[in-house]
């Protein structure tokens, strides 16, 4: 079992319901394919520094996962077909730190 961080960027013109649906959908996908969601962070609507596919903003969702390489393949194939998602990134870690949140501080200030 390995630890991963999976971030997904949804389109800016979606409503809040759609974003919640996307979050549920991927959490279920991971849990069903011999994986486990440890934590979900919502970074909210953030500006891009450059345009990505003619969009200037995006909803950021951040998953912290424990799973196997099989589960990652499933997620990648599904995300590439998903039309609501602009871009995604997965990073492998040996140890995850669940405490520090870099984007939660911005909301309070």
């Amino acid at each position, binding site marked *: 079992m390995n630890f991963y961080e999976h*971030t997904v*960027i949804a389109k800016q013109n979606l409503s809040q319901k759609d974003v919640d649906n996307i979050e549920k959908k991927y959490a279920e996908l991971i849990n069903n394919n011999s994986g486990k969601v440890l934590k979900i962070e919502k970074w909210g609507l*953030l500006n*891009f*520094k*450059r345009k*990505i596919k003619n969009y200037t903003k*995006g909803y*950021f969702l951040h998953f912290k996962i424990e799973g196997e390489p099989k589960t990652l393949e499933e997620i990648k194939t599904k995300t590439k077909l998903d039309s609501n998602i602009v*871009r995604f*990134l997965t*990073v492998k870690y040996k140890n995850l730190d669940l405490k*520090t949140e*870099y*984007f939660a501080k911005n909301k309070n200030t």
Partner: protein
Amino acid sequence: MKKRKKNFKNSKNSLNKLSLFQKSDARFSRKCPFSVKNAPNIDYKNISLLQKYITETNKIITSKISNVSLGKQKKLAREIKKAKILGIL
């Protein structure tokens, strides 16, 4: 007499030499900011830290200028590229 000599030695600074042609013994060296104790964590989510090591035109600053050690510079470059993929940097 001994005391005077000691004071003279301490007050003598290599930077205060009169002639320009003599080489100064002082070195202007800084330590790597990431190999100190309690160093900040290099991560692609830590944007405020990564922004210090990037120019205005989004280029990575060389380790000659920023004095980051070789291993840490490689890690920095990797994390900056990850952040650029997400469009945060």
